[in-house]
């Protein structure tokens, strides 16, 4: 122990002066901003950058911004908000026939209403699942038409926000049963389903979504029998569903691992079959545990739907880009992207805040 002094890297020899008490919660604002030299420097730096940037931004967006008028008013001006005012139906609903525009509006309203209905924990029941299935079918009929005297609208004319929402709801809804099977398969003691599940999950998660979209849009038509065509929207949906299934399966696996083994043993001791045990005892507990991370996965799915741009579908982003192709307007890309980003932000931020609240308030929450 004699060589201890050689190891020491830092030894303070003289005592420090007593420090003032740290600023508490009720400290004055200027104290938290200028409590030390470093802190004051940070405040000045950030403040300086903000002071330089905000007037420029305001001048572009407000002072020189064009709120009314046509394309000519926007030339050599600041932000062209008038473009968004003129084109928002195109951005939000794509090339859907304008006489039928009430249908996509109703679709958005139905999906919003279902989402709001599902938020309170007391509504997490079988009835709600039934409502979602019925609502989704109704929404599909509403978009496509052809029955109940609705004018048929082919999927190639669907566009905008309804596509983004539909792709999200359908890929999560259709992906979920697959995810349950994959997660159960991965937890199984039988080698065949186990390795099959591991393989499918890991390959899907190892690939970029873009390549899965390529597979769905280019290879899937080749893999089906001759003369059998598959809709572009369905192809993109297939890719997103596979992708969602693999990610949800991994979330569910966490939940399955969190159910104590005694639960399954007790179920078997009561004489339940494997299927009854899984459906009535294991899955309800596992799914409840992972609802907060599942909600966060929905955010990822919403963001992922924007990738269908590369396979030529008109979701919110592509419709916005299509709206920009108008020679009468000076193509205000920045403003359009800001509007699209803001729409995504409202959806995703809302869902992620909700997930955060669930995480904090749910009993035996997501603590793995």
């Amino acid at each position, binding site marked *: 122990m004699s060589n201890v002094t050689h190891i020491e890297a830092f030894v303070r020899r003289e005592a420090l002066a007593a420090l003032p008490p740290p600023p508490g919660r009720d400290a004055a*604002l200027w104290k938290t901003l200028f409590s030390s030299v470093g802190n004051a420097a940070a405040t000045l730096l950030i403040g300086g950058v903000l002071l330089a940037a905000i007037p420029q931004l305001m001048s572009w967006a407000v002072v020189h911004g064009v709120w009314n008028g046509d394309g000519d008013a926007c030339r050599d001006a600041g932000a062209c908000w008038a473009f968004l005012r003129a084109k928002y139906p195109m951005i939000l609903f794509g090339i859907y026939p304008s006489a039928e525009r009430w249908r996509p509006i109703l679709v958005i309203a139905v999906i919003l209403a279902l989402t709001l209905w599902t938020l309170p924990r007391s509504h997490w029941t079988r009835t709600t699942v039934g409502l979602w299935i019925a609502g989704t079918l109704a929404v599909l009929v509403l978009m496509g038409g052809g029955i109940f005297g609705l004018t048929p609208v082919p999927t190639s004319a669907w566009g905008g926000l309804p596509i983004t929402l539909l792709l999200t709801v359908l890929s999560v809804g259709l992906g979920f049963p697959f995810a349950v099977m994959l997660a159960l398969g991965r937890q199984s003691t039988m080698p065949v389903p186990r390795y099959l599940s591991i393989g499918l999950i890991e390959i899907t998660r190892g*690939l970029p979504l873009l390549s899965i979209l*390529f597979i769905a849009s280019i290879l899937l*038509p*080749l893999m089906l029998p*001759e003369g059998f065509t598959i809709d572009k929207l369905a192809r993109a949906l297939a890719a997103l569903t596979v992708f969602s299934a693999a990610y949800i399966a991994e979330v569910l696996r966490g939940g399955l691992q969190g159910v104590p083994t005694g639960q399954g043993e007790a179920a078997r001791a009561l004489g339940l079959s494997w299927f009854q045990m899984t459906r009535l005892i294991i899955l309800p507990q596992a799914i409840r545990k992972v609802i907060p991370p599942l909600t966060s996965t929905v955010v990822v799915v919403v963001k992922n739907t924007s990738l269908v741009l590369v396979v030529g579908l008109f979701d919110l982003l592509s419709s916005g880009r299509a709206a920009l192709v108008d020679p009468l307007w000076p193509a205000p890309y*920045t403003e359009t*992207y800001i509007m699209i980003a803001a729409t995504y932000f409202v959806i995703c931020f809302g869902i992620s805040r909700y997930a955060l609240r669930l995480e904090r308030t749910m009993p035996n929450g997501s603590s793995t």
Partner: protein
Amino acid sequence: MDPGHNLIGGWVRDARVRSAAFQTVVAVAAIALVWWLAHNTINNLAQRGITVGFDFLGRAARFPISESVLPYSSVDTFAWAFVVGLGNTLFASALIIVLATLLGFATALARRSRNPLARGIGAAFVETMRNTPLVVQLLFWYAMVTLGLPHPHDALNPLPGVYLTDRGLYIPWPRIADFSFAMEYPTLGRFNYSGGLALTPEFTAMLVGLVFYSAAFVGEIIRGGIDAVARGQWEAGRALGLPESLVLRRIIMPQALRVIIPPMTSQYINIVKNTTLALVVGYPDIAFVTATTINQTGQAVEGILLLMIVFLVISIGGSLLMNWYNRRMALTVR
């Protein structure tokens, strides 16, 4: 058990037999599905007169790649075009990983800072980046570079020698020639800047978009790691009289790294996968080369197979590396 009694019923109830039967059914169904899909594919390809095989890789690609780290010209083969695309992907990924880690670290520190201004900016940055799609952000930056920046003749000049124009970014870069080493500055020619290092608008948009987006995720991982270290460690460090920066460097970060490294590895793999989205702004990465090749030759199966193999090698390689590292860390801990 009476073996003679109800032989069939006994078999049906035997867990081992049932498991074997179930697994056989699953395996046969999986093989049949794969066989059916392959069969259809071969039929369809034959119908369209496309020969399956990798022979096309030896042919001349005859399409341009606008920029690349490796030398390329359109008389080179498809095989080389793939390598060039992969080189671009790996180069971009490496650069993004380094820059996103630095920016992410700064974000994490800002969000943990006592300064409310820094905290606010950090939170706003992270929430904006994480709650909007990467594709939208990439397209936004591309529009900002190509439409928001001025023409070369009235280029923005924020730092000496740095010029921001709608044709790209120009920064000074050292040139080594004949044993001499000198900084070369971009100079304005008749139409554009030359000399120094030129970044195309595509590269700039991809770099800025992916670095910002990834930095938000990296920052949250680092913040999570720092928060996972017990508060007592900070207090003990301060009680020893260590300055704040030394507490962070010598006490907190070594402990935080153990929490940070596993999610960080998957984040880095995500960055590599996300670079494929650079396709939307026209940066010629491997996905871009694959898409162009499929368009030109119709060799969809082979092209997608190559793309899949590349990414599976990267993803699985990364996971294996992380598992190995985790095992090593676990050994040294206890």
